[in-house]
């Protein structure tokens, strides 16, 4: 799976997450959109909901991806800070598989 496919799945999951979010705090669904941090409407629980939706989206396509990271809540180093960082992180997880 290449990064473009990963990005498409992530953005699908963001749309799913938005269905359960109020109109005034929708995630920006774009290839460069922020996910967690000052520019994002997500709090920590919202981030959890999104990442579980992302895991579900991959699982429904036959891929087991577990998104947990010690720097998840870091505003600067979090692999969940924006779409490019998340795509890159998932790509690294999938590439590391035996």
């Amino acid at each position, binding site marked *: 799976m290449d990064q473009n496919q990963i990005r498409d799945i992530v953005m699908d999951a963001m749309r799913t997450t938005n269905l359960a979010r109020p109109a005034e705090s929708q995630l920006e669904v774009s290839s460069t959109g922020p996910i967690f941090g000052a520019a994002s409407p997500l709090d920590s*629980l919202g981030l*959890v909901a999104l990442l*579980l939706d992302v895991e579900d989206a991959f699982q429904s396509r036959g891929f087991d991806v577990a998104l*947990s990271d010690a720097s998840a809540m870091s505003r600067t180093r979090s692999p969940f800070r924006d779409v490019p960082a998340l795509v890159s992180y998932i790509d690294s997880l999938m590439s590391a598989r035996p």
Partner: protein
Amino acid sequence: MSDPRHILITGASRGIGRALACHYLAAGDLVFGCSRGASDLVHDRYAHFSADVGDEDSVDALFKELRGRIGTLDVLINNAGAASMNPIVLMPAKKAREIIEINLLGTFLMTHAATRLLRRSRAGRIVNVSTVAVPLRLEGEAVYAASKSGVETFTRITAQELGPFGITCNAIGPSAIKTRLTQGVSDKQMQALIDRQAIRRGAEVSDVVNVVDFFLRPESQLVTGQVIYLGGIG
């Protein structure tokens, strides 16, 4: 009759875990049990997995297999536990680590993995098992009670974090009860514990089942982050 629930119980091969498995099988539920060893429980709605809840790889393998069988989990009962009655000075570090890994880390690992399936349930439930050794501050049970104190705090914060997904998380603290974990406790010590209760009798497994049933009821949606001790201790 309502749809059968999908229930996962750790430490299900004996004692309280096995009794809970039999109880929910009798209620018509689909029950998955795990323990480090095998189980001789045979039922067409029961499946047993060999897993070490304190080991991340083992828990990952368990959930990979579970996801292959079910898409939703309704209940997780973190019952697996380890104990060793020993004064702090005489407690080997290796044993202390094992107790903490099974009781506290195991509860975390199972909750961490199960949340993915529990959130698809209409009424996800997590029940953890604590002990009256926490409020009683029992001598000789420092590591065991400390690990269960951790389970209680973990229970309360899990309730906060998973509440938005409609998942409740509570704990039960059984009072003096005859199980494998308490087989090293003498009758005299058991009676001394019972004498500290408001209701002075030893607990039966059915007393534990009763509280777990209460936590699992659909009407208990607002009951979360609670620890219920048997016998009037707390």
